[in-house]
């Protein structure tokens, strides 16, 4: 009995001493320490640190430890949760930014295509203009050619007063007007088309196929026969000569009078 009491004595003493120590060293400071840690951001997440001090009882230490473990776990989970939330927010932000970029690129593509279309149309238009200009240039060149040929046909007509009698020469000179010239004597069979109402295409002769002495003096007139076989020339020597056109050469036919 005495032994057991003695047993209880020192054991109880130890037990009491431990409780006293905990009261002094731990419980009084627990709340303060927790609240000081509460000021640091990490612990703002954990609600467990708003817990009131533990009741002083024999079970205090046990519930203490459980509570501690739980609050530590809760802190860790809260931290993980905020990290994940943050990551999610960042990823959502990146998604939005990438979407915006895609839309921007689409718009750029569209505007580029529109411009390309415009340019193509311009090119087509310019092509058309180019063709038109080329053809009108060619027309102009032909006209120039013809005009210089008619000038050659009438070398002794310095004032340009001689009126051609046939319809062909008529239309030629009507189109190109009169001009002074002092060119070659020769004439040439020309491949000008006979005019029919509206002149289709007229070319001024440019080459002299045949040059010969027809009269002693000036040659005043030259005419082809309707059959184009005979050529009549009249000059200042008061003579009219008839020539025969045979294979590109001219032979005297008429007698002189």
């Amino acid at each position: 009995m005495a032994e057991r009491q003695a047993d209880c004595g020192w054991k109880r003493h130890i037990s009491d001493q431990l409780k006293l120590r905990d009261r002094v060293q731990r419980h009084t400071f627990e709340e303060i320490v927790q609240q000081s840690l509460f000021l640091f951001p990490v612990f703002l997440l954990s609600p467990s640190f708003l817990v009131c001090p533990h009741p002083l009882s024999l079970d205090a230490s046990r519930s203490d430890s459980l509570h501690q473990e739980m609050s530590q776990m809760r802190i860790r989970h809260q931290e993980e949760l905020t990290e994940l939330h943050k990551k999610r927010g960042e990823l959502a932000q990146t998604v939005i930014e990438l979407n915006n970029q895609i839309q921007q690129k689409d718009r750029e593509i569209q505007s580029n295509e529109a411009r390309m279309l415009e340019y193509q149309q311009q090119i087509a238009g310019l092509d058309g203009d180019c063709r038109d200009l080329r053809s009108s240039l060619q027309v102009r060149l032909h006209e120039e050619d013809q005009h210089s040929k008619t000038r050659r046909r009438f070398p002794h007509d310095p004032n340009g007063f001689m009126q051609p009698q046939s319809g062909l020469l008529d239309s030629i000179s009507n189109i190109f007007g009169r001009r002074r010239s002092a060119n070659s004597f020769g004439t040439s069979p020309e491949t000008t088309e006979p005019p029919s109402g509206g002149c289709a295409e007229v070319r001024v002769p440019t080459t002299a196929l045949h040059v010969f002495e027809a009269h002693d003096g000036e040659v005043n007139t030259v005419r082809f026969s309707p059959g184009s076989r005979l050529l009549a020339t009249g000059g200042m020597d008061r003579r009219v000569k008839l020539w025969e056109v045979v294979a590109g050469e001219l032979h005297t036919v008429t007698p002189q009078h």
Partner: protein
Amino acid sequence: MADDKDVLRDVWFGRIPTCFTLNPDEVTEREAEAYYLLLPRVSYLPVVTDKVKKHFLKVMRPEDVEEMWFEYEGTPLKWHYPIGVLFDLHASNTVLPWNITVHFKNFPDQDLLHCPSNSIVEAHFMSSIKEADSLKHKSQVVNDMQKKDHKQLWMGLQNDKFDQFWAMNRKLMEYPTEDGGFRYIPFRIYQTLSDRPFIQKLFRPVSPDCNAHTLGDLLKEMYPDALTNDGEQKRYQVLIHGIEPLLETPLQWLSEHLSHPDNFLHICVVPVPTD
């Protein structure tokens, strides 16, 4: 008995309110606030001060940071002592909270061991357990344990898991009934003013005539000055885990219930406060 389990829990969950302040000589970018923490008595400083380090690193430039070390009123704190021992030895009767100064440079190589990582603490902890068991059971129990059991002891301490730790530790607290106790009691007596770091000798828990030795018997043998003779004024306090057990407490029971997790009975003898 149910009380015994309570004692074990009270010992395990003992806490010391501590205020960590940065040494004013440290170069900081802005003023550092003090950091308050409830330190576990049974653990070691490097294991529980990660948050302290993080808190103070926030105000320091990385190039100014070397190994962190702690100091109380000029005395560098040895990290390989349990925190409760450090407190009882240096600051047991001072005003709470315990004010520790944090340093990041000028590591005192003469006084402190370097502790680059927690695995160093683990190695030290395991070697203490093995030493204690060699005294208690000629190392039979600890050698019979597997590597994972050793790991469980350390993880239990590191993560503050009472049940995980004691599931393994109770094996180390068993003894053959015919012996009446351990072979020798693993203990260390620390004194404040002495050249020796601690007293550790062989001491049996049971006397040859089968009487259980008490705390008083141990002190009489190892450190008689700690005891107060009749008529004298008490000069010293004998502290284990911050309390003064009665001198008639059986040593075997003390070793089983009031040991630290490293299976040693750490006893601090401090002068009685004069005021």
